[in-house]
Each structure stands twice: as C-alpha cells, then as structure tokens.
C-alpha cells in the first residue's frame, strides 16, 4: 500500500487507481497463457517499467506470474516417459475457462473504471464519462499491444447482439411517452429527412472531394461515398444518452435529440443495405430507387409491428403470472429481446422493434406485476445498460489501437468538416420548416443545442466494421475517418456542451416531484382541451388521444390486465404510487415510530375543520396515548409468518413489506375515520376502502389472503377513553393482531377513542378497524370492516368484501 502523500494524493484517492492498475495487471495471466513462457520474465519486467514510477507493488506482481507458470513446465518434465503420472494436486487448465474468464475480466474492468471515476469527482465534472472510458480503452489497448498480443476489436456481432439491446431497451421501456408523442412529428422529420439529407449531402460532397483529392482516394466511387455517408450520418443513441444524461437539459430538447437518435435507425438500416447491395452495380435504375423507397416503409413499419406484437404477447403473459412472481422480470426481458432478434432476422429495424415493444407492454405489465418485480426490472435494465455503455466506449478505445488504419488527410478532414456543416444546415432548414407547424417554436438556442448534440458513436463504427474488405477495399480508410469523427464528436462536443449549455442559459430540467395536484390539473386540462377542440370542431391532438384512451379502456385493458385492475383509472393508479412512495419514505426515515421532520404537519384538521366540532368523543391526552401504546406493545404479539410449504420459487412474505402495508392501511383508516365520524349512521354499507389499500393487497401478493367470512363472535377490544385509564381494562386480543404502535403514531392524525374489532384473524395482512364509538350495530361493524375488497367493485351494498385468491 503506498504510503501517505504518494504523488500528492491521499491514500484514499490513490486506492482506486491501485485497483485499476491491479485490474489491468490481472489481464496478464490471460495473455501469458498463450504459451509465451520463456519470455515471461523479460516481458513482464518491461511491463513493470512501462506502467509507471517504480513502485513496490507493481513490480512484485510479475514474479508471482512466473511462479504460476513454472509448475506446469516442471510438472511435465520429469514424468516424461513414465507410464503412470502421480496424481496432480494442483493443475492449471486455462483453456477450459478461457472465454467466460476473459469476458468477466472485461466487465470487471468496466465496472472498476466506473467506480474509479466517481470516487475522483474533479475530473468527472469536466470530462464526460464517455471520454474517460475511451481514454481507458486506448490505454488498455496500448497495454495489450505493448505486450505483443493483438487486442480484441469490437466485433459487430457482439455489439449488435449483446451490447446494444440493453441500452435501447432501457431507453424504450422508460421512454417518457407524453413528450415523445407530443413531439412525434418533429422527431420523425428530424430522424428521417434529417438523416437522408445528411447522408446524401455528405456522400455527394465526399465524392467531389475524392475526385480531386489525390491518387489515394480517386477510385472511390459515388455509391461507395454514399454508403459512407449513410454510415456516418446517423446520430447515435448511445453517445447521446451518455452525454445528455449528465447535462440535464430541459425535457423538450432531450426528447428531440434522443428520439431522433432512436428513430433514425430505420433510415440507416435501409440506406446501408441499399448502398451495400448497389455498390457493385454501375447502373442504378429507377426501379431500384423505388424499391429502396418502399423498403424504407417496410423496414420501419415492420419493425414497429414486430415490436407491438411481442409487446402485446408479453402483456398478455404477465396477466397470468400472479402465482410465480419470481420470473416476471424475465418475461419482460426475454420478449423484448426476442422482438429485437426477430426484427433483425428479417432485416427490419431492430431498434424500432425494441422501442415499440417496450412502449407497448409497459402500461399493462406494470399494472399486472408486483412491486418487487417492477423494482427488479428497473434496476436490471439500468444495470445492464450502464455496463453495456461502459463496455462499448472502452472497446471503442481498444479497437482504435487494434485496428489497421489508413490515414488520408484530405479524406478525414473533409469528412469531419462536412459532417458538421451538414448537420448545422440540416437542423436550420428543418427547423424553419417545422416551426410553421409547431405551437411551441424552436428558438435559435434550441436549434443550436440540437445541432450540437448530433453525436456519432459506436453504431457507425460497427456498421463500418461490417463492410466486407473484398467489396470495399477502402474499408480501412472509412474506419479511420469514422473513428476520427466519433472521437471528435464525443470528445470535443461532449466536453464543451456542458459549459455551452450554461453559457447560453438553456432551460434545464426541472427537478420537480410529480405531485398529486399536478396530476389532477393535467388530467383536468386534458378533458378541458378535448372539449374545446370538440367545440371548435378541430380534430386535434387531444381528440385522437381521447379516442385512443377510450379504445384502450374499453377493449385492450380488459384483455391484458389481470382482474379488477383493468378498471382502474389513471388518477387512482397515480395516487397509489404516491402513497407507496410516502409510506416507503416513512419507513426508511427511521422506522415506524418517528415523525419525519420533512413531512408537513398539515393534516385533515387544517383543511376540514368541521370535524372537531362534531367530534363525539373527546380526544385522548398525550399520556393516555402513551399508556395505550405501551399496553398494546407489550400485550399483542407480532403476526406469525404464514409460511406455506416453502419452496425456492415462492416469495415469502417478509415482515418489512407487511409492516409497510400495515402502515398504509392504518393511515388510510385513520384518515377516513374522521370523515366517518359524523356520518357513520348515514353512510351506506359500502366499501370503506381506499384504492391504496386494495392495491396493497393485490400488489404484495403471492400470499393469497383467505378471507374469513364475517363473524360476529370475534373478541373485541374496547378502550373506553371516558373512564379513567387503566391498563387492565384492555383485553387481550387474539394473537394475529400485530403491534399497534404504528397506528397510534400517525404523524398527521389525532387519536380517537379506540374501539378495535379484529376481523378475519387468519389473514396476516389484515388490520383492525376503528369504529367511532363502542356499541354500534353489526351493520356498522360490517361496514367498517377493514379487510379490503379489491377496489372498484360493481356491487354496492355488498357486505362481504373479499379478495379472490391469488389476485
């Protein structure tokens, strides 16, 4: 361990760098095993010098390596010729694990890099992560080359089949649908027309340059140049994501650039295949052009269609997964991946298929799956896409070192120049056109950011790499030019975009939490605007959205969403989410007993002051509350876990989740208590449930809650607050009731007189019910029963709510 003050950094800061170095060195055994045993020590010592200032740690590693190797050589020597070898106590068989070992090492390297960057914050503020990763890739590539091995190149197959899909799926599944659909026209125009313009403009100009550019590049024909143009003109979603993620610009710009980068895949695929096919042909007829045009529609719409089909199947499947919650996330991933592969199978646009399937399945799947699966999906997607991105950039760096390059000043520089010019002109021209139709016009500042955000990335490189050298002898030249453009856009544009955004004072993303108020207002506005549009007779945006929603509600939701949730309106779903979040915050902020200081002390009292004046019972004083709390805590046991026959595949109800469900229930209960207080005689025997509670039931599934039918003969706890409080007046309730502390410590509500009727004792998730006063009739008991019914039930006046098993 280096002593303090090494290179002026504290030990803590140096630690990750040592990690990094150790990881790099970990690559050595990989390389060694190729059989260069004799040269081990010499190479390794040069390695040691290569790495950096002589440090005890660094040079100590090599001797271990050579020690590893020796037993092998020693091993086989003496036993040569003997018919029987002694049993090998320790052996090495690297080839056996080679591939997974190397893959894991690379991924580990990527993760450690990410770790390192975030521990050293100073650099990561200036340089975006993608740049740093490319630099690391360059270093690693240089390392490997220096050792004499040929570094791996980013193979197109690996890239397109394994590295790209997680990123796109992550983007598609979490695509903010509202701004996307609102700006769809703009995005499509940028994606399709913009990319076409870029490709042809660039191709044409490069052809002109090639004609006059000198002997090296004279043979590059028009079609080749057009192919090159089409490869390099597409804005890359990976690069855009990596850079824009860090600068937090406003939603509109983000979705414009990002949406464009996603949707231009169709254009790129068509152009690429088109020109690749035509490259050998001298004469392009009109028919070919028409066919090419047609294939564009086939590719894009076909891709979307494939995605939608898989999305629907996934949504339908998720309807039935209530018994096996564990594999729910897997369905989402697998169906999406299959959509991607199927689209690629037919040469359709895989990216669009992936996006379409993610968008399609999301609302239905989210209504069907449990809360845990939702979290799993979210985190797995984020994890995979993050690692993919890191690997892509590292490999870009490595491939740069590894590839054979052919540098031609004219070609490369003019490519770079024309790329920029084409982008700027394209954006300006298209915006002028688009602004005629937009309500919220794009200002020059916006246009600048859009033009500047046109980053190229690994997709262009992989497409170039796919070219066959036999057909395209100038492949190396192309690759060099592509890499130069990528480096330029990622480094120069990526690094400077953040200060430019600050300089130009571009509107940033507003970090506002979605509040329930906002949701109500937004929905209200939607209705209002639909109405106004109807009045104007204008078939506008809202009109079609309304129609789609109606169709969705009437037919689609019924098929794809399990059970009663199919009727749940969006507002309620949103409200439920908010409540869950609040409950989680409450629990996380120090457990059940404390009041988080950030929570406002606004309570029902403040907004509905009528309740106190009509209160029938006096409130409990603080001491009495304490006493009650103590009593209950001591006398009531915790719910025992209801363990069915345990197997690995069922999720056991964990007490944490139980606790927070309980909390939700209690909060709802007590809140509604106040409303009930003055009208308990007049409210019809209805469900008293809040949507949250019923969702909590359904959501935290797999334990089916067996409802116990109503029984009047259950024991009752009564605490009579009017009489002098004494602990003995509390009866012991049956053992299923959980500790009551949480219920008494709601931060918002006052306590009422407590009469608790335990119901349905066999279900662990149940709660007790508060009724406003003792001695009320069975009808009110039934009415205030707590075991929730599943939300929207069609029968009013039903006295016995229950949840069907397994839903």
């Amino acid at each position, binding site marked *: 361990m280096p002593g303090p003050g090494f290179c002026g950094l504290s030990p803590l800061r140096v630690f990750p760098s040592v990690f990094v170095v150790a990881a790099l060195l970990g690559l050595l055994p990989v390389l060694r095993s190729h059989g260069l045993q004799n040269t081990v020590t010499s190479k390794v010592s040069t390695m040691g010098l290569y790495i950096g200032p002589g440090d005890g740690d660094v040079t100590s590693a090599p001797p271990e390596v050579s020690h590893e190797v020796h037993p092998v050589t020693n091993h086989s020597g003496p036993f040569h010729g003997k018919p029987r070898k002694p049993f090998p106590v320790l052996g090495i068989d690297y080839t056996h694990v080679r591939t997974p070992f190397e893959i894991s090492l690379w991924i580990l390297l990527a993760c450690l890099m990410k770790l390192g960057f975030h521990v050293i914050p100073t650099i990561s503020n200036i340089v975006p992560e993608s740049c740093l990763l490319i630099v690391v890739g360059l270093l690693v590539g240089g390392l490997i080359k220096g050792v004499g091995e040929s570094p791996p190149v980013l193979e197109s197959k690996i890239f397109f089949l394994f590295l790209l899909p997680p990123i796109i799926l992550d983007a598609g599944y979490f695509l903010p649908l509202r701004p996307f659909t609102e700006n769809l026209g703009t995005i499509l125009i940028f994606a399709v027309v913009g990319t076409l313009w870029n490709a042809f403009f660039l191709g044409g100009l490069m052809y002109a340059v090639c004609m006059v550019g000198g002997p090296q590049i004279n043979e590059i024909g028009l079609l080749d140049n057009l192919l090159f143009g089409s490869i390099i003109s597409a804005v890359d979603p990976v690069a855009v994501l990596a850079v824009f993620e860090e600068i937090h610009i406003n939603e509109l710009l983000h979705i414009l650039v990002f949406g464009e980068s996603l949707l231009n895949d169709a254009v790129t695929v068509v152009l690429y295949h088109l020109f690749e096919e035509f490259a050998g042909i001298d004469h392009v007829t009109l028919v070919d052009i028409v066919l090419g045009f047609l294939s564009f529609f086939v590719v894009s719409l076909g891709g979307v269609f494939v995605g939608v089909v898989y999305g629907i199947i996934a949504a339908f499947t998720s309807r039935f997964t209530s018994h096996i919650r564990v594999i729910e996330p897997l369905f989402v991933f697998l169906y999406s991946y299959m959509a991607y592969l199927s689209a690629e199978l037919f040469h359709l646009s895989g990216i669009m298929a992936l996006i379409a399937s993610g968008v399609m399945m999301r609302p239905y799947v989210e209504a069907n799956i449990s809360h845990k699966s939702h979290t799993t999906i979210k985190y797995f997607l984020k994890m995979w896409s993050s690692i993919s991105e890191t690997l892509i950039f590292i490999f870009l760096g490595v491939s740069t070192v590894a590839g054979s390059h052919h540098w031609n000043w004219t070609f490369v520089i003019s490519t770079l120049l024309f790329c920029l010019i084409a982008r700027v002109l394209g954006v300006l021209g298209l915006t002028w056109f688009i602004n005629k*139709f937009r*309500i919220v*016009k794009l*200002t020059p500042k916006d246009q600048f950011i859009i033009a500047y955000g046109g980053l190229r990335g690994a997709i262009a490189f992989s497409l170039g790499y796919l070219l066959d050298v036999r057909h395209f002898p100038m492949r190396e030249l192309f690759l060099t030019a592509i890499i130069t453009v990528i480096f330029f856009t990622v480094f120069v544009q990526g690094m400077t975009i953040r200060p430019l955004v600050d300089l130009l004072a571009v509107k940033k993303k507003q970090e*506002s939490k979605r*509040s*329930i*108020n*906002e949701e*109500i*207002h*937004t*929905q*209200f*506005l939607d*209705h*209002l*605007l639909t109405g*106004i*549009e109807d*009045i*104007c*007779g*204008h*078939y*506008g*945006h*809202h009109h079609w959205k309304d129609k789609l929603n109606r169709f969705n509600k009437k037919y689609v939701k019924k098929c794809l969403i399990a059970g009663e949730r199919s*009727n749940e*309106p969006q*507002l*309620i779903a949103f*409200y439920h989410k*908010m409540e869950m979040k609040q409950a989680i915050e409450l629990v996380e902020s120090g457990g059940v007993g404390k009041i988080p200081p950030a929570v*406002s*002390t*606004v*309570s029902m*009292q*403040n*907004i*509905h*002051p009528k309740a106190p004046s009509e209160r029938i019972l006096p409130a409990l004083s603080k001491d009495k509350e304490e006493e009650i709390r103590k009593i209950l805590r001591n006398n009531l046991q915790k719910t025992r876990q209801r363990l069915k026959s345990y197997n690995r595949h069922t999720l056991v109800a964990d007490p944490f989740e139980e606790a927070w469900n309980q909390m939700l229930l209690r909060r*709802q209960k007590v*809140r*509604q208590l106040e*409303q009930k207080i003055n009208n308990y005689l007049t409210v019809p025997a*209805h*469900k*008293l*449930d*809040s*949507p949250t509670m019923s969702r909590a039931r359904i959501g935290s599934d797999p334990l089916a809650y067996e409802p116990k039918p109503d029984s009047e003969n259950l024991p009752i706890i009564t605490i009579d607050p009017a009489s002098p409080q004494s602990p003995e007046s509390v009866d012991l309730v049956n053992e299923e009731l959980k500790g009551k502390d949480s219920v008494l410590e709601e931060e*918002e509500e*006052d306590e009422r007189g407590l009469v608790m009727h335990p119901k349905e004792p066999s279900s662990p998730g149940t709660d007790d019910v508060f009724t406003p006063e003792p001695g009320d009739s069975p009808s009110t008991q039934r009415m205030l029963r707590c075991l929730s019914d599943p*939300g*929207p*039930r*069609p029968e*009013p006046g039903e006295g016995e709510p229950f949840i069907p098993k397994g839903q």
Partner: protein
Amino acid sequence: MGSSQSTSEEVRELVGKTGFSSDQIEQLHRRFKQLSGNQLTIRNLRKAPTGLADEINFEDFLTIMSYFRPIETNMDEEQLEHCRKEKLRFLFHMYDSDSDGRITLEEYRNVVEELLSGNPHIEKESARSIADGAMMEAASVCVGQMQPDQVYEGITFDDFLKIWQGIDIETKMHVRFLNMETIALCH
C-alpha cells in the same frame, strides 16, 4: 351583434378585444353558427345550478376561445406573464364553482369526482381521499408547516399560481386554430 358579422367595424372591435385575426374570427363565426343552429346565442342545454350561464352569444364565445390561443414568440416577459395569469385565472374559475375566490375542499372534491366519474366502478370514497390528499399537499406547499388548530380555508388564486409555478401552462393550454379547415360536424 347581428348576424351581419362581416361588418368590418364589429370585426375590428372583436380583433381588438380578443386578439384573434379576422380570418380566425370568420371561421369561428361559421362554427358558432353551426353550433347554435343559426341563432344568435347558444343555449345551455344542461340544467345548471347557479354559476353557469343560460346562453352565450358570439362575443362571449370568442372571449372564452381567446384563452386558448397559443402564445406568440414575439411576446416579451411582461406580456408572457400576463398571458399566463389570464390562462390560469380561467382555469381557477373552472375549479371555483361558487366564485368566491377560493377553491374549498368541497369544490375540489367535486372536481376530482367528476374527473373520475367516467368510471362507474369508482366509489366516492376514493375520490374523496384523493381530493383530501391533494388539498393537504396544496396546503403544505402554500403555507408550509401548520399548527393543528390552524385552518386552511381554501386555495386562493395566489396559492393556485404557486402550485402551477413549475408547470408550463402556456405550452399546454392551447388549441391550434391554424387548420380550421378540418371543421367537422358535431357527432
């Protein structure tokens, strides 16, 4: 206002009042005639409690429509602010049915119930709890920490502005009046 709307004087008057262009006014007038069956006013067919008008004439029609005009790019800060306030005031009045300047809990509950009324299976309780939750949130945004005995009367217009601060009402509350050629018959 007679049906001879084409008199340029009246048109100019309306242009001044509402800010529409004369073409737009022409088109809207055509639409108005469709809706009203060539009468001078549109009758309110709904049996309305107090607060709703029985009939509106063309000028009222235009005034309301003018709230939904998209904002122009050449507006300066002050005009933008004014425009935004006007739109929000319109919205506020839609919530505040008794026009007392405050959105009380009851009114808010009504709004949420109506929003959810499209779904017959939702019972009143859910709507109520949502409205209560929203009201509490609004109170905590506008007033912050409240003592248990303070009472929050209702959302005033200023509070309303505060709530809407983060949201771009100008971009959301508009209808395109450009392509009025797609006038469809009521169905």
